[in-house]
């Protein structure tokens, strides 16, 4: 999901008119993972694939995998803790960011 190469801003002479952003989803260049103070850690063994964490993630930084397990995209996770809170089986734990 993430875009790894840094977003190179054009000079004003090459910018599109009308102030538009002509590419979709360029926010992927904007890694909000560095906002995080607490980090969700997933214990896959406990996961029951209910998808509640994926459903409620505001970024979304929870990635739904093909088998309906999930993984956390730390590039974007702001560490809000919703996922840990909604998880019915406590498979996600919030820990201090190192």
């Amino acid at each position, binding site marked *: *999901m993430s875009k790894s190469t840094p*977003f190179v*801003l054009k000079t004003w002479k090459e910018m599109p008119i009308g*102030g538009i*952003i002509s*590419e*979709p*989803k*360029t*926010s*992927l*260049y*904007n*890694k*909000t993972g560095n*906002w*995080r103070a607490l980090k969700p850690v997933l214990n896959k063994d406990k996961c029951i694939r*209910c*998808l*509640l964490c*994926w*459903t*409620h*993630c*505001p*970024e*979304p*930084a929870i990635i*739904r995998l093909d088998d*309906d397990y999930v993984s956390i*995209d730390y*590039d*974007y996770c*702001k*560490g*809000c*803790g*919703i996922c*840990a*809170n*909604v998880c019915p089986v406590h498979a996600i734990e*919030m820990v201090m960011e190192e």
Partner: protein
Amino acid sequence: MYVSVKATPIKSLKELPRTEQFAPGHRLCAGCGIPQVVRFALKAVPDPKVVVNATGCLEVATTIFPYTSWGVPWVHVAFENAAAVASGIEAAFRVLSKKYGTKKPKIIVFGGDGGTFDIGFQALSGALERGHDLIYICYDNEAYMNTGIQRSGATPKGASTTTSPAGKAVPGKMERKKNLIEIAIAHGIKYAATMNPAFPIDMYNKIVKAANTPGPTVLHYFTPCPTGWYFDPSRSIEIARLAVQTRIWPLYEYEDGKIRITVPVKDPKPVEDYFKLQGRFRHLLEPENKWLLDEIKRDIEENWNRLLKLAEQK
């Protein structure tokens, strides 16, 4: 004739489409409730679609040049006119599809409570009256959060905001919240509903119904706001759920001329459970404000009973 691809309801979260047309990397607060309705709307409403956004949290945080979170055409013009801008886009595509065979997209409008209840109210009313084919989604975080938590016409009674601060003489906002859905229904629209992120399937299927309804529809979404309501961001969904369980935020829909409560609440939880988690309401639990708390409780009961009556009408 309006909708070429039907939106499909779901029974479980497993059926939620995987596609994400809303990208991370936006600058909404950690724990913000807004993205869920955005993600759901983009999943539920089939392509082609266009999003129109009023000025507000969602707009400023998701489209900071040159970063956009949007994977669909997204248009922002100003604060009070999202419904009017959407009207123009809808009308244009109606003509262009007739003249040149251009595909006619469904229009989704997102406005906050400020952009919907207050400054954008006239434009919304006009668009509903004219019958444009659009889904209007109000994400209601119950105050002007984008400018720093000022009261709106959607701020509930008792809430403390920066322009209705809980003081000794006046303990917060003294006025009740406008009833957006009933106002919307009064325009003669075909579908309207309230939504809450803690009830995702209910919410998704309401967006599906709106998508499959020709003409204007209005969806009123409860958006927990950790910043403006003063609570721990991890508790967003918990608080949202409590709003329903206390009957503060009834989940219902208006369809075929009838109101139906979609999530019945037989034994409501005490409103204190909801209030005590949020800084904006904490003063209501002080002894000197008991009169206000009692009044709010009466209001909630009155609203609920009124809704029950409306729902009983056949």
